[in-house]
């Protein structure tokens, strides 16, 4: 057990190192001059540009630049925004929390939808199974930004009194904040609910075929008891793992939805930074989102290894 955690954590550290290097190189591989981008629209003297280059450490070898950048990042210093000249972390943190909230609400909606359709599919079989699977196949073909745009369109046409595009900060009005998050979260949740539904179906079907369930049925336990105490209990691990992995990708994948619904999260921040070519911010967001995925992946691996002693480290 301890060995599993140790090996996975070292593995995670190695991947994170690679991820940080790619994030670093991504912004150094830009066509054009980094300093000119930092200077923005101002026309500066060559001497000033040279001084900026020295300040940013751009005249040092690439590997030294990377190491000093990595050292700063580990201390929580992601550099300064080219646009606002504020520390990136300072601006990123509140937006990260907004995206996290959106992702968690989406995960909750997706869990409810996915587990219930998956259960219907696995328990009823026959026509119900087919309907659910066709529905899942269709939903998978509708990208989240299409769902989002259509929601905004329908609300605008038929319920104009619902203000979809107004975001309320959580501290001002917690209920209004959550209410405003439901529609965008729903748009994000649809595709995830399909994955959860398919996994629930597969997990429940697999457990149903095992001997201990037959024994439970043979000794006359109520179907309801079998469902909750035997089937769901064992099917839960894969379902939770899948949901976790999906939430991790949401942290980087809610860009379009945040833009459509005007939610001031990490995704919209990324979009704005791309428009204004604010490279330190882009770099920080890419790094944070990828780190979240790696972290949750590792947690899922450890959870699997803990639940199933046969998994090797």
């Amino acid at each position: 057990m301890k060995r599993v955690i140790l090996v996975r954590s070292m593995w995670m550290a190695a991947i994170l190192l690679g991820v940080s290097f790619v994030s670093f190189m991504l912004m150094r591989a830009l066509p054009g001059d980094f300093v000119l981008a930092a200077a923005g629209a101002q026309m500066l003297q060559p001497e000033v540009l040279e001084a900026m280059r020295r300040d940013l450490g751009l005249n040092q070898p690439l590997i030294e630049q990377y190491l000093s950048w990595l050292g700063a990042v580990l201390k929580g210093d992601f550099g300064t925004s080219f646009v606002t000249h504020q520390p990136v972390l300072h601006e990123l943190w509140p937006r990260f929390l907004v995206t996290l909230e959106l992702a968690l609400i989406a995960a909750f909606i997706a869990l409810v939808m996915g587990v219930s359709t998956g259960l219907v599919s696995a328990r009823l079989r026959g026509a119900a199974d087919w309907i659910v699977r066709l529905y899942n196949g269709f939903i998978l073909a509708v990208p989240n930004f299409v769902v989002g745009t259509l929601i905004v369109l329908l609300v605008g046409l038929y319920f104009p009194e619902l203000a979809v595009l107004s975001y309320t900060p959580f501290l001002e009005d917690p209920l209004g904040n959550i209410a405003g998050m439901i529609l965008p979260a729903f748009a994000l949740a649809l595709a995830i609910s399909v994955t959860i539904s398919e996994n629930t179906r597969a997990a429940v079907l697999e457990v149903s075929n095992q001997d201990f369930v037959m024994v439970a049925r043979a000794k006359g336990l109520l179907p309801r008891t079998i469902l909750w105490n035997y089937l769901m209990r064992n099917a839960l691990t894969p379902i939770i793992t899948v949901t976790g992995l999906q939430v991790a990708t949401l942290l980087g994948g809610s860009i379009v939805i945040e833009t459509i619904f005007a939610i001031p999260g990490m995704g919209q921040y990324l979009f704005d930074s791309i428009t204004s070519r604010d490279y330190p911010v882009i770099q920080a967001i890419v790094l944070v989102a990828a780190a979240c995925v790696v972290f949750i992946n590792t947690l899922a691996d450890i959870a699997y290894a803990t639940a199933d002693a046969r998994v090797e480290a």
Partner: protein
Amino acid sequence: MSDAAIFSLAGAEPAPRRRLRPTAGRLLLGLGLVMLTILVLITLLAPLVAPFDPSATSPQSLEGSSSQHWLGTDAIGRDVLSRIIVGGRTTLFITFTAVSLALLAGLVLGLLSGYVGGWVDEVIMRILDVIFAFPVFLLAIAVVAALGPTVPNLILTIAIVYTPAMSRVVRGPVLSVKKWDHVEAARSIGMSEWRIVTRHVLPMVVSPIVVATSLTLAQTIFTVTALSFLGLGPPPPDPNWGGMLADARQFMELAPLTVVGPAAAIVFATLTFIVLANGLREVLDVGSER
């Protein structure tokens, strides 16, 4: 040696062709092929099929459906249907080229990794693990933003983003197939490694690759249209589905068809490849990925 020759050698009559029973998998595959044909035909013949010039403006802006403009007109009076038909060209061209590149790279890396094994496998898989850690769409956005949104950059980006997944799909089955007896036999009679790989390993792993390619095509349509939706797509004036959807949002309550049209096109194209992938999976009997 043809099949007929084998049968005559064995001194047996060729078995009568089995009638294909319409199973669910075959129905899905058939439906997918029909949808693909429609999609490809409309795309290839776009200039002939489109009723209007997609870039021609007219004073009749934001009109609803009429016998002339079936899906109405957009904010500067361009025919929506024609723009959808021609816009499919850009979107699908990027999709097909990018996935072909990712498939090619995935084949090379996956075969190298799986068949050669050892440190080659370690190095390739560890590098791909790092790329795999980035959420696909996020990486695509960052790379396109860094390189600039042009058609070649979009193709390159999407190819890079989907290469790790493709390589894994190839590597997995190769790992087991290379231990099979017929590979050992081929090697024992002194067949060259290249011939073993192309004749005896690759044909055995085609099915999962075909299914994965179809699913990747569906995901790529999402990625391309979503990038275009954010303004990181192919530059104007050529229409594309994601960009049309984004442009239409401003006036969508006045002319809902300007949104519904491109949305339907995106869903249809994605659905085509999902139906195709599911049909292929049933017919080729490929297990689920896990």
